[in-house]
C-alpha cells in the first residue's frame, strides 16, 4: 500500500459516484445475481454531465459535531471531473481537476500554484473521512465481483459479492442491500479478508436530480468504519443537476485556475 492522494481526489470522485443512478423500475422475478450487479452498474454513471453540491461531515468517535467540507463537483462522462471547495474558509477556492484516473491536478490559491497529484490512491481515505478512494473508483462491480443472492428483505435484494481471483480490491467480500425499484444499494457491509465486518454504509433519501433525464441520487450517505472505533462520515448532497450541457473545455488547468 502506498500513497496519499490529494484528498480532493476523493471529493472529485465522490461525485462521479457509484451512488448516483437512474431508476430502473421493479425488478423481474427471475433476475439472477449477476444480472442484478449489471443493473446496478448500469444505474451508475449513465449521464452526460452532472453537477452536484455536497457537504462532507467527518466526526471522531464520541463527538457530536465534526469538521465539515462543502464542495461542488462537475462531472462529464466517467473520466472528467472538476471539484471546487466552498467551505470551510481556509480551503475555499481550492480546486481539483481529474482528467482521467491517472491525471489529477490541484489548485491551491494560497500558493497560487497548480500541482499534479499522485495517482496511487488505493486504500486511502478522504480528508480523514471514512470514504476510501476505492469508493470513488468508476469500476464496474460486475467485472470485479461474483455475486450470490442470499435473500430478499423489505423490497431489497440481499446480494453477497466476492472478489474474483486476481482482482485487487479493498474489500474482498461485500454484502449489499439493493433496492428492487431503482437498483441502488441502500445498505452495504464491507468485510476484510478474515471475514470481519470492517465498515457499514447506508444510503438513503434518494431523490431525482434536476434535469432533462431521470437520475436518482442518495442525498444522505452514512459510513461507519468499525476499524476506527466506529468513526463516522456523512456525505450530504444539497443539490444534483444532470445534463446541463457542460462544455469539454471546462475541464482544463486554466479553468481550474480561473475558477469558472
Amino acid at each position: 500500500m502506498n500513497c496519499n492522494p490529494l484528498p480532493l481526489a476523493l471529493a472529485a470522485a465522490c461525485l462521479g459516484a457509484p451512488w448516483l443512478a437512474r431508476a430502473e423500475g421493479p425488478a423481474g422475478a427471475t433476475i439472477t445475481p449477476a444480472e442484478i450487479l449489471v443493473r446496478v452498474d448500469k444505474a451508475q454513471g449513465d449521464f452526460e454531465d452532472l453537477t452536484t453540491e455536497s457537504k462532507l461531515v467527518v466526526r471522531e468517535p464520541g463527538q457530536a459535531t465534526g469538521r465539515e467540507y462543502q464542495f461542488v463537483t462537475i462531472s462529464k462522462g466517467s473520466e472528467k471531473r472538476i471539484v471546487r471547495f466552498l467551505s470551510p474558509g481556509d480551503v475555499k477556492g481550492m480546486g481539483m481537476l481529474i482528467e482521467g484516473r491517472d491525471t489529477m491536478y490541484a489548485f491551491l490559491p494560497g500558493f497560487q500554484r497548480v500541482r499534479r497529484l499522485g495517482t496511487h490512491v488505493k486504500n486511502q481515505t478522504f480528508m480523514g473521512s471514512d470514504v476510501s478512494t476505492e469508493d470513488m473508483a468508476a469500476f464496474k462491480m460486475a467485472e470485479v465481483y461474483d455475486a450470490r443472492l442470499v435473500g430478499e428483505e423489505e423490497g431489497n435484494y440481499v446480494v453477497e459479492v466476492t472478489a474474483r481471483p486476481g482482482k485487487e480490491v479493498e474489500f474482498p467480500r461485500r454484502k449489499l442491500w439493493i433496492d428492487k425499484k431503482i437498483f441502488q444499494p441502500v445498505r452495504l457491509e464491507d468485510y476484510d479478508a478474515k471475514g470481519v465486518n470492517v465498515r457499514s454504509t447506508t444510503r438513503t433519501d434518494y431523490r431525482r436530480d434536476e434535469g432533462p433525464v431521470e437520475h436518482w441520487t442518495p442525498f444522505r450517505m452514512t459510513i461507519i468504519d468499525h476499524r476506527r472505533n466506529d468513526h463516522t462520515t456523512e456525505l450530504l448532497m444539497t443539490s444534483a443537476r444532470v445534463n446541463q450541457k457542460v462544455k469539454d473545455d471546462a475541464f482544463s488547468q486554466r479553468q481550474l485556475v480561473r475558477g469558472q
Partner: protein
Amino acid sequence: MALVSADGEIPRGLGFPVALAGFAMRHPRPVIAAFAITLVLAAVGAARVKDAEDLLDFIPPDDPDVRLFKEVGHTFGALRVALVGIEAPPGEDLFSAATLERVAAATAAARGVRGIDSVDSVTAIEDVVAGEGGAPDTRQLVELDHLPRTAEEQAALRSKVMSRPSVVGNLVSRDGRAALILAYLADGASDRLVSHALHQAVQAAAGGLTTVYGGAPFAGSAIYDETQADVRRLTPLALVFFLAVILIVFRDPLGVLLTIATVVWAALVVMAGMAFVGEPVTPASSTLPVMLFASGTSYALHLLGRYYVLAPPPGRPGQSLRELDGQRLLSALRIVGPPVTIAALSTAASFLALLVMDIRPLRAFGVECAAGVTLALLASFLLVPAVLALYPRGQQSLAATGNIGELLVRLSELATRRRDVVLGLMALATAGGVWFVGRIQVRMEARQFFSPGSEPWLAERFLADKFGGSQILQIRVRGDFTEPAALHELKRMEQYARSLPDVTQATSVVDVLMQLNEVMGGGHRIPDTRAQVPQLLFFVEGKAFLKRLLTSERDQALVLVRTHGDSQRLVREMEAYLSRDFVARPAGPTREQVADRLRWLTRAAGEPIAEDVLGRILEAARRPDPRDTRLVEARRALATAILTAEDEQDAMMPRRRLGDPVQVPGSPARTLDEVVGEFAGDLRPPELTSPLRQELLALAASPEEGALAWAAYAERLAGRTRAIAVDDALRSAGPLPAAALPAVRDALGDLFPEPPIAAVARPLSWSLAGEPILERGMSRSVRKNHIKAQVVAAIAVALFNLMLFRTVRLAAICVVPAACTLVILFGATALLGMPIDLGTSLVSCIGTGAGSEITMQYLWYLKRSTPIDVVRFVGPIMVLSTLLIAAGFAVLAFGHSQPMRMFGSLAALSMVGAAGLTFVLVPSLSRREDAGAAVLEEKTA
C-alpha cells in the same frame, strides 16, 4: 501479680464484649454453625471478586493536572501509549527484509488488538514526499511490497529512513538496530487487558526477535502484576509466621486455630462483600489479608492470652467446671474487652481516615480494612467464647518473657530518672522530623517502582538507550494555528525544549508544515501566509500523526518533548520558560528571539555559540541591497524561467524565446529579453502594485495565469533574498556546529519574512500535560492525602481513647508516641532522600492507629496496676504483640514490588518505633495519679 486480678470498672459503653461473649457461651453451637456457614458462603463469594482492570482509577480525578492530562489525552487521542521495542538480530540492522517483515507483522498484530486505537511504527508510518507532479504526497516510508532484497537496496532504505528526523530516535533507534511500535490505547480501554493482549500478540508475531514492553500501560500493569504476585507469595509466608509465633506463645493448637479463624473469616467476608457490590481487587486491596493478619489477630490474641493466665475463680457448691471456666473467660474479657475494643475501633477509624483521600481505590481500601478489623473484633468476642465454652482450656503459663520484662523495667526506670533528657531529646528529634518532613519528596513516576531486572525496568533502560527515554511532556497551546506567527511561537518553544539537558526530541505540527512547505517549493520553513497553512494541512488531513499534533479545528496544538532524564525537572524548566518568555500575541520572530534560538540550537548541538560571535552574526544579518549583483542576477534568472515558460509547473505562461517580440498594451513593442532586463533592473519590492506584475498579467493567457506567474516570481525572489542575507550573516561567524546549521539558517531566515508576518488575532495560551504532569498531580495528591489522612486518623484515635480514659491528657498521650515515631520516620526518609509514594502514604494512617494502640494498652493497664508491674508483666506481651504486627508488615518488605517493600518496611518500623517510644515516653509523660495502684493507696490513706 496485681495485674491479673485487677478487674477494673468497665467504662460506659464498652460492656458489650462481655454481653456478646455471654451470648456466645450460652449458645455456642448455633454461633459456631453461623460462623461456619458464613465462612463457606463468604469463601464462595470471595472467589468471585474481580481484579481491577483500569489502573487510571488510582488517578485523583479532581486534581487540576490530572484533569488536564485527561482532557489533552482525549483531545489528541493519545491518553495512553504502549511502547513495544523490537531489536534486530545480533550483528544486523533493522533493514533486512526478514526483520522488517517481522516488525510489520508485530505492527499488524498490535493493530489487531482490541482496545488499540492506532499504531505507529517504521513499517506503518507515512512519509511526506514530493509527489510525481510536485504536490505533497504521503507514502509508506517502508514499502512492504518492495522490501530490500539486495545489500544495495538495504543500504538505500537505511539511508532513506535514517534521513528522516521525525523517525530517527522515535520509531527507529539512532543506531538503526531497534524499532519502536507506539500503540495508542482507545478511550476507555483497560490498560491491563490491552497490555497483556498486546504483549501476547506482538510476542507471537515478532518471530523470535527480542521485544521489550514499556510505556504507561505496561508499566502500570507490571506494577499491578508484581504487587499481586508478591501478595500471593508472601501471604502464606506471613500466615506460617503468625502460626509459628502464636503456637510458641500459647502452646495450644486450639488457640492458634481460633486466632487465625477470626481473621480468615473477617477477610473472606470482606472479600465476599467486595464481590457482592462489584468492588474489584486493586493493588491496594490485594494486601487486605496481610493487613488483617497484622492488625486483626491481636484481638483474639489479647483475649486468649488473658484467658490462659487467669486462674479459675473459686467455685460455689454445685458449680460445674465448665461454668467456672466460663466465669474465667468473662473475667478475662472484662480486663481486655474495653482496650481491645478501643484498639480495634481506633485501627478501624485510622483506616477510615483514608476516606479523606481523593483516590477512590484507596478510599475503598480504607473501608475494606476497617470492615475487616471490625469483623475480626466481632469474631474474637463471639467465636472464641463459643468455642471455649465447648472446649475449655486449663490455666497455663505463657512462654517465658522474663528477660524482656526486666529489660523494659530498666528502660522505663531510666526514662523516669532522666525525664528531662528524654523529653528534650524527643522534642529535638520530633522538631527535626517536622523540619525534614516538610521537604519530603513524593514521586509517582512509574519507573520509580520497577525492581531492577524486571521486564519494565529492562524496557525502561532499552527505551532510554535506544530512543532517548519513554517520558513525553506535552505542551498544549491554544490559539489559531493557521497563523504563521502562532507557528513561529511553537517552533521557538520546541527549540528551547530541545536545548535542555536530557531532552532527546521535541516535535510539533511545525515540523510537518515545514516539510510540506518544502515539498511545495516554499523551502523548509513555516509558510509565510495564513492562507497557505490550511492548504498544506489539506494534504495530510485525517492522518494519525496530524491528529496527535493538531486538532481539526486548528485551535489546539501539542508540542511533544521527550526526555530520558528527570521529567519533573523538565516540567519545572518548561514552566519557567513559558512563564517568562512565552508570547501570547506574537507577531513573528524578533531579533532578540532569533538570538535566543541561535543560543538554544547551538547548545542542543553541543557547541554553544559565543556571545561575540552571535553579536557579529546579528549585526551582519541585513536585507541585501537590491542593487547587489547577486540579486540582479537572481531577478534575471527567475524572470527568464517564468517568461519563457521554462518553469511550467509554477507559471502557466505561453512558451516563448528570449528574442521573441512581445507587445504589452500601452507600451512600445519589445523583445522578451528586454522585458527580462526590466525585471533584472527593477529595484522595487515585488508587490501587487508593481508595474512589472501588470506586464506579466498582460503577457499571460489570462490574468489568473499571470497572477500565478507573478506569485511564483515574487516568492522565489524573496527566497533568494533571504538566502543571500543569511549567507552574509553567517560569513562573519566562523564555523558553527554542522548539526545545527540548517536550523540556524532557518532561524536567521525568519528575520526576513516576505510578506511580513502579521500579529496573531487570537491570543495564545499554554498548559502542560502528559505523563510527567499526571505524575506531578498524583504526587501532589499523595502529599496532600498523606497529611490529611494522618491528621484525621490522629483525631479519630484520640477521640476513641477519650471515650476509654475520659481524660483529654491521657487520650492525647496515647497518640504522642505513634505521632512522634511517624514524624521522625518520615523525617529520616526525607533526610535520606528517599521519595515516598502512594503506598507509603498509607503508613501514616496505619501507624497512627496501630501505633497508638500500644500506648493505649499501656495506659489502660497502668490504671489498674503499678508502673513497674505494667512494664514487667504486660510489657513483654505488648512487645510480642507489636513484633508480631511489625513482622506481618515486614513480610511485605520481602516482595519484588518496590512500593510494597517500602510500605512493609516503614509500617513495620512505625510499629516498633511506637512501641519503643511508649516505654520511654509514657513513663516520662505520665503522672503519679495515672497509676491505678497509687490512686488506691491514696484513697486508703
